[in-house]
């Protein structure tokens, strides 16, 4: 898989840090004065390991999300093209025989909404492209 090598250690750390700082540890009171035995210590350790695992999982998910962002944008464009091809007659684009559009229409709510959404950004193709490539 390509993404782990494409994300630097520094980026990974940026993702993890806020979670490590702000994650509340359940059932752990820092003001507790006395420890009632070794059992408590092991549950505290277990809890910390659990939280670290959670943080790693969240970080991993975020890393994966970032890695597929471009593919997702590409997919969205393809779905829009598909929507335009099938339902193009509604916006004046050459389209397949009407019955093909109508047969597929009941299953294409997502594409229909996406097409409408794309209309808003259709007049700013460059800004959309810049946001896809994360250029500020």
């Amino acid at each position, binding site marked *: 898989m390509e993404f782990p090598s494409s994300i630097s250690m520094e980026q990974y750390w940026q993702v993890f840090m806020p979670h490590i700082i702000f994650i509340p540890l359940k059932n752990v009171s820092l003001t507790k004065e006395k420890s009632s035995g070794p059992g408590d210590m092991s549950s505290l350790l277990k809890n910390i390991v659990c939280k670290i695992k959670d943080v790693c999982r969240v970080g991993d998910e975020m890393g*994966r999300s970032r890695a*597929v962002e471009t593919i997702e944008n590409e*997919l969205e464009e393809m779905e829009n093209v598909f929507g335009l091809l099938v339902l193009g007659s509604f916006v004046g684009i050459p389209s397949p*025989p*009407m019955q*093909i559009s*109508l047969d597929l229409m*009941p*299953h294409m*709510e997502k594409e229909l909404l996406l097409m409408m959404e794309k209309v808003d950004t259709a007049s700013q193709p460059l800004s959309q492209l810049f946001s896809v490539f994360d250029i500020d």
Partner: protein
Amino acid sequence: MGKGGVGKSTSAALNSLFLSRIGFEVLLVSLDPAHNQSDIFEKKLSDKPKQIVPHLQGIEIDQEQWIKRYLKDVQQQIRRTYAYLTSFNLEKYFKVIKHSPGLEEYALILAFKEISRKFSKADVLVFDMAPTALSLKFFNLPSLSLVWTNHLLALRKEIIKKRELITKIKLMKKEIETDKVLSSIQKSIREYTDLKQIFENPYLTKINLVMNPDLLSLAESRRIVDGLNAINISLSQVIVNKMQKNSSIDHIVREFDGVDLLTVPFSEAPLVGIDSLQRFISANEKIFIKQPLEILNKAG
């Protein structure tokens, strides 16, 4: 098939009547939006089969009704699958859609499919076709739709591939989900392929070209044959109707070399009413017996 006014409906009526006379169970279906069969048989026909004579039933397809029924079905499906607000005000759009070009021939295709399925026990289904343009569109619809659906299928498969890649990276597993659009495209492809095969199979579909011995009729018949050849459909028989005593058919024989030719004489008496049609068949039985061999073999 044939040019307007050459006698397509009368030929269909005579052929159906003849086949029923020799013992076939025949269903005569009028696909022409300007129905003539009720007038020819002097019997009111509708979209439900009605007995004309023993062994012969007739139906006149109500094209508008088929379009309405189809659109209503699509509308109901949309209501079931879309969120309420997306399908809000749907009627307004569908009122316009029903006038869209292309739905006319699709309504005929729907009727054709339904009738072929429902009356599969009949020995012969005789279809009285609409004028040339609509008939050619009717026969062309499966091929044209297949061009589009195959293209859409390829694009949809690309989309699904990308979607699977994203799911695999995000969730670390391949989530197999049925894509309803893909299933619908595949179903359409199967149906259009079946229809195309039925139209192209000369043993299942016999297309009779009806014409008169005049030059205009010949010119249009030539265009019909070219149109059919382009979609791989061949003619079964050419019926030269309204032949006068001094009419020559040499140019027609030359034009349709290798195709069975049937010459039907001009009738002095109007061919209206069952008795009149029966009399004409009795007087010209040797002409009508020249049916395609497969049909007569079936009759034994």
